[in-house]
């Protein structure tokens, strides 16, 4: 089933009764070439690129719950490529280029909206850091512009420019950044993978990983054992539990990050804005809700909900930045489980076990990485060589100390990111 304008029109006129399911619901086979553990954004994207670019279709994605029910459906939907350090820089650049052609490639409306991002700065040192980061972004081949206070005022007049503590001096802008409809990204990749023959198996929790003589041979699941030549983890916040099934301990702590949506208001914020004093990121969904978030709660958690001190901090920052929305009511909030690495950067690498691959440690920035991560991980699984845009996401950088990518400069240790 291909989506096309005339089809949408026809279905709209005939009660939308002609649409079928977007993917099959197959029984698991007894053996696959590749099994991906985790049917979230990264796992589905990996399956799609394995099938589309590497011709590997004897492939299953095993998902404990339902497709896209984890962090890909729980984030603030921001897409950008304004990283600074080599390793991250070329990877997110690659990912943003994939985003730009994603909907055409998948024939799926992911509502990709390159509405630009403004990273505000409030003092001289933040301006200098923004200039440096902007130059780095331009050098990586992407766009960055430094806006002064007047230019920000034209673009986002509703901001509080004269906050006594944090007056706005300007912003670093990336026009190609924006937002995408997060669920549709998961669905688009799922449909694309399914159309190419990938089995997407839901309600199929993996309970064990079979390893014989240092080589992976398959997995145990609640729906029986499944053999596989290669097994690839894409379990995000649950990576530690899945890796432990193969006897591996990862450099990961799972933390909670909260996100918030206000009631719908008239169009106000037509870009993504980040506030550098106090940390906040905010955009407005097409339904009118303001979507925003802030820091981690800063304690280990699998509860998928946070605590009130960070809610309070986020609301304070929000109102300090955009006083006009102080009377908007909060519609809902939720928490996601973040797989935090010591340096805040991810891992796409072989594991010490032959045929077992790792994709984890996306911290609080996994959504924008979805196509890039799937593309690079598929390349690694298919060819056993890292993708050119993801050569530095090594597992052993933590042991050796070489190649750590501490984007925030806070120190590469747990609890600082």
């Amino acid at each position: 089933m291909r989506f096309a304008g005339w089809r949408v029109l026809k279905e709209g006129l005939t009660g939308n009764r002609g649409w079928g399911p977007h993917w099959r619901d197959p029984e698991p086979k007894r053996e696959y070439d590749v099994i991906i553990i985790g049917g979230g954004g990264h796992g589905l994207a990996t399956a799609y690129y394995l099938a589309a670019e590497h011709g590997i279709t004897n492939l299953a994605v095993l998902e404990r719950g339902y497709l896209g029910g984890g962090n890909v459906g729980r984030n603030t939907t921001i897409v950008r490529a304004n990283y600074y350090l080599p390793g991250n820089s070329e990877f997110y650049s690659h990912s943003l280029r994939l985003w730009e052609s994603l909907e055409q490639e998948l024939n799926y409306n992911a509502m990709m909206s390159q509405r630009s991002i403004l990273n505000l700065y409030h003092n001289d040192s933040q301006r200098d850091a923004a200039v440096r980061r902007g130059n780095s972004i331009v050098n990586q081949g992407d766009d960055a512009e430094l806006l002064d206070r007047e230019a920000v005022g034209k673009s986002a007049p509703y901001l509080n420019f004269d906050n006594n503590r944090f007056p706005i001096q300007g912003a670093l802008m990336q026009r190609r950044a924006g937002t995408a409809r997060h669920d549709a990204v998961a669905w688009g990749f799922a449909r694309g993978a399914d159309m190419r023959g990938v089995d997407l198996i839901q309600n199929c929790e993996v309970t064990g990983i079979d390893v014989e003589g240092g080589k992976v041979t398959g997995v145990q699941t609640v729906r029986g054992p499944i053999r596989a030549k290669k097994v690839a983890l894409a379990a995000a916040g649950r990576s530690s539990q899945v890796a432990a099934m193969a006897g591996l301990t990862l450099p990961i702590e799972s933390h909670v990050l909260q996100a918030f949506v206000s009631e719908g208001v008239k169009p106000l914020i037509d870009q993504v804005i980040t506030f550098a004093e106090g940390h906040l990121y905010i955009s407005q969904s097409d339904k009118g809700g303001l979507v925003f978030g802030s820091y981690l709660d800063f304690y280990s958690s699998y509860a998928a909900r946070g605590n009130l001190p960070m809610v309070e901090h986020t609301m304070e920052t929000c109102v300090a930045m955009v006083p006009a929305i102080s009377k908007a009511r909060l519609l809902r909030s939720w928490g996601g489980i973040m797989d935090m690495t010591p340096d805040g950067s991810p891992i796409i690498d072989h594991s010490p076990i032959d045929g077992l691959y790792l994709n984890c440690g996306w911290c609080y920035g996994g959504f924008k990485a979805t196509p890039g991560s799937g593309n690079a991980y598929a390349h690694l699984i298919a060819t056993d060589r890292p993708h050119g845009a993801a050569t530095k996401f090594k597992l052993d950088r933590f042991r050796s100390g070489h190649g750590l990518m501490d984007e925030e400069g806070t120190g590469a240790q747990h609890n600082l990111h």
Partner: protein
Amino acid sequence: MRLTCPLCGERDRREFYYKGAALHRPAPDADLDAWHDYVNLRENPAGPLAELWYHEMGCGSWLTVTRNTATHEILEVALASTSGLGGPA
């Protein structure tokens, strides 16, 4: 989430700084793997976890808190100096 400090009583989460899992620090001359384990690797359980918290805005004590990471339930709080968790092995 509130923690009951053994010296100050039940206090708001905001008074505490979170360090992470309460692990035994290897000897200074321990090998690289022992330090890699200590600095980077984590069991990261979804369930009870012994952690180090610092009562930053209270008495200044380091505490070992046993907390369920799946529910945020606090199971036990003790002074780190007496708990035997964390610090040198």
